[in-house]
């Protein structure tokens, strides 16, 4: 055990918990108007779009085809209304094949 590593872990824990816990503490005291309510309902969609793009292209920094093909396979399976798990495993399988063949 290194004391400075433990201190770092403690500090990281505190600064990570803070933004997660604040809304749990104050949510009772907050009331949202219809427009804010709509804004909060849209945030999950925009957050997810931002988490996907452009990150997926650099899943392998040296090969853009890995990100592209994996995302396309996941997208195609999701379009066909496959369960989420199937989409995830399908994308992994496609990338595995791509790595093994090329």
């Amino acid at each position, binding site marked *: 055990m290194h004391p400075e590593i433990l201190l770092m872990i403690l500090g990281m824990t505190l600064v990570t918990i803070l933004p997660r816990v604040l809304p749990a503490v104050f949510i009772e005291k907050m009331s949202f108007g219809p427009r804010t309510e709509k804004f909060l309902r849209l945030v999950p969609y925009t957050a997810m779009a931002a988490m996907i793009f452009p990150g997926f292209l650099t899943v392998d920094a040296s090969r853009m085809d890995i*990100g592209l093909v994996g995302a396309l396979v996941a997208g195609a399976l999701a379009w066909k209304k496959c369960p989420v798990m199937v989409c995830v495993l399908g994308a992994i399988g496609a990338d595995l094949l791509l790595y093994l063949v090329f």
Partner: protein
Amino acid sequence: MTSTQTKKQQYLAGLRSGLPVITGFFPVGIAYALLARQAGMSPVETVLMSATVLAGSSQIMAAGMILQGAGITAIILATFVLNLRHLIMSTCVMRHFSGEPAGLRLLSSFGVVDESFAVFCMEPEENRTLFRFLGLISAVYLAWVSAAAVGVLSAGILPQTLLDSMGIAIYALFIAILLPSLRQNRRLALLALLTAICNSLFSRLLPASWALIAATLLCAALGTAFVDLQTDGQKEESADAP
């Protein structure tokens, strides 16, 4: 919000909804553990960090910064900035839990991460219950901590090609839960596209963590002007009706 399921049924359903996340977590958790070991962290410290911080990208960043010789203060500050996005995500999750016991709410807020937020907020309104979220984050938490343990134990055993191919899993997860909603709502799809473009542009100007927050908030605000969540709203009204 009324739900016909018992708390136990909701919890178990939440656990099940976490299964796809587990697949996505393993490669990230293992990659983190390998890097942390390389940075000189002991096996216990490596797993401990996963158990207390529970934030993949910042843990990988921390290990990388140690390797580059960065100081503790810089690492903690960078972690704070990187994880500020959880303030927004937690607000979106917690607004479903006002009226629930404060203790359970605090406990559940610890489990707000990108993936639990994404899975939970894409559930139909009537499924967004506290116990379902607790089930979901139990799966997420166990997966994340075991991934670090597997990473520590399996260094050099798991084939690198397999780990590399699993890197797409998190993105596949997000795509798979986002796409069905976009398919039903063209304006929402347009908003997602706009967000993707904004985030790509902002990423060139700002650090990625700030770009993500800016694109998410700006585009959600823009969306209030032109996106119609009417169908969703009607469902919510019927679910909330006495």
